[in-house]
């Protein structure tokens, strides 16, 4: 058994795939260094990230397989599931062998697995576009804390850039401690930890209470259905929703 370890970055993962190819090896697992539980039997190889190598894999996925496959790979990577690296590797090997048509082979477990996870990540990206709630802070900054299951904060940037180009906004993944900052002109994605309490702007409480009132009034009492509500809006997302929070 041969295990490859990478540093947890997307470049690291692609470097590992590059190395496997050029060393003529087929690792049975490719895992992020932090995710691994010791196994005595495994032979371990630690891969050092080389952006030149990862870049070549990146281009090769795009040109030799498809842009769609590249997107699937990136989304599965963002799922941060412990086996994501291994699944991506197996998916890509098949892709390079068969070509872009391989995405239709849904009865193949390697393809189906990646599609399912990629869909789930994409689903959360889409869901978050609706569930992100900005609070207007002192200084006219719109701040939204989130805690998504997958690492999707980067995926929602284009949507909000187009939607709120004239607004200063921050989207903060509080669990991963990363955030997107936009100042009305440029944006950046980086580490973020909030030490001070945030201070709401003057009008903020008014709109929050209007929204809560609206949320209450729009439900039809004769059709109340908490089960359906929870299925559509899982409780794990309630924490930062104005209408559901304290």
């Amino acid at each position, binding site marked *: 058994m041969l295990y490859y370890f990478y540093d947890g970055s997307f470049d690291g993962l692609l470097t590992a795939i590059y190395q496997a190819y050029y060393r003529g090896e087929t690792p049975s697992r490719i895992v992020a260094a932090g995710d691994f539980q010791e196994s005595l039997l495994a032979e371990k190889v630690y891969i050092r990230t080389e952006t030149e190598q990862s870049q070549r894999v990146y281009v090769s996925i795009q040109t030799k397989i498809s842009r769609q496959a590249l997107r699937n790979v990136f989304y599965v990577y963002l799922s941060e599931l412990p086996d994501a690296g291994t699944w991506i590797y197996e998916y890509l090997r098949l892709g390079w062998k068969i070509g872009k048509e391989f995405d*239709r082979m849904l*009865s193949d477990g390697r393809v189906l697995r990646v599609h399912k996870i990629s*869909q789930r990540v994409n689903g959360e990206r889409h869901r978050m576009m*609706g569930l992100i709630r900005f609070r207007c802070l002192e200084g006219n900054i*719109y701040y939204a804390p989130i805690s998504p299951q997958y690492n999707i904060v980067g995926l929602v940037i284009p949507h909000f850039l187009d939607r709120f180009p004239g607004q200063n906004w921050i989207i903060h993944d509080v669990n991963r401690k990363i955030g997107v900052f936009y100042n009305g002109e440029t944006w950046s994605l980086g580490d973020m930890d909030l030490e001070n309490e945030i201070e709401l702007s003057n009008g903020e409480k008014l709109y929050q209470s209007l929204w809560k009132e609206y949320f209450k*009034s729009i439900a039809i009492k004769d059709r109340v259905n908490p089960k359906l509500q929870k299925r559509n809006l899982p409780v794990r997302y309630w924490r930062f929703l104005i209408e559901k929070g304290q």
Partner: protein
Amino acid sequence: MELLDKLKILADAAKYDVSCSSSGSNKKNKKDGLGNSCYSGICHSWADDGRCISLLKILFTNHCIYDCTYCINRVSNAVPRATFTPDELVDITINFYKRNYIEGLFLSSAVLKNPNYTMELMLEAVRKLREQENFNGYIHLKAIPGADNYLIERAGKYVDRMSVNIEFPSERSLKLLAPQKERETIIRPMSFISSKIIEGIEDKRKYKKAFDFVPAGQTTQLIVGATPDNDANILRLSEALYKRFSLKRVYYSAYVPVSSHPNLPSISAPPLVREHRLYQADWLLRFYGFNAHELLNETHQNFDIDLDPKCDWALRNIHLFPVEVNYADYELLLRIPGVGVKSARRIIASRRFGSLDYADLNKLGVVLKRARYFITCKGRYYGGINMDVHSIKEQLLINAKNSRSLDSGEQVSLFSLYPDLLSTGDKLSSITGEL
């Protein structure tokens, strides 16, 4: 009156409008603008009744000159009344939007003074949003029946979607419950909007700069269970509306008893299952290539409450089954109970790489607890029972009952509005409202 109280009254009065979808319009933001819209639509929350909240769905006013028996806003009903000013409405919409609470505005109204007066007020709010605030998000505007065409035409240039509620499936029912309204005043604006949409598309072809008239199309809504109309009438009407006016959607709203009147049925709960069956059939019309008369006709006027319309149809046409999934064409695959648009597409795509096993079907999202009785896979029948109508029906009913007892919310779920489209694995993608 406080803004909060107005909002409460006017949201409460708007809640029986079913539509809250923000789909069908794909706009990038403009320079210095606020907002865009996404073709699939985006849900922002789900209310306690499980319905999605995408737009700020609200009435401009609930003061009404009409006295329609079925409606909570009827003039004879003693409820608190309120009216927004255009500026108040603009302020709430913009501030909700900036906080990402909503995808846009769904503005409807009771009729204040007269239809034109009301329509002008609504138009003013919408115009301010677009021109003064540079708001580029989604707007769904209800056209007030009886308002002049020029007002509707002006409004159509600002909004993404328009709708006129047809309310009742037949003229007789309308006469009974909304005696001051005429069918003609409802159909006329629908037909006008539809012709303007077509005109707009043609103009767009000729001149690049032509504006979009109601780019997300028009919809309507009708109430189910307040009148003796049967399902066959309703479905025929929907089919005609889709064909004649190219409507995007017909919404069905189970009648919630809001008043007691000799002309209204006395029911204890809204007929949710019936509403659900109609939605399922509606999907069959729009995405599955069914005709209304195949599903319901003179001898079969109402849906079976216990069986979904597709199973019901399949059992009445059992001579077409079993279907071999490895050879059947797309149209035929779509007719198999338990196979939806997605799984049919997946079957077509993946069988090019080799014929499919029965076990593969599950992976592709086919709902085998229904499909197994209607298919063969590599020539073999997996139903496990005799292929006759009675045995299959019995089995389907048992399966349905088992899953209902596991999950009693199922029958009125939003997801189940997509008949067969969803296998469990697909639930997330359904949120994207891809259809």
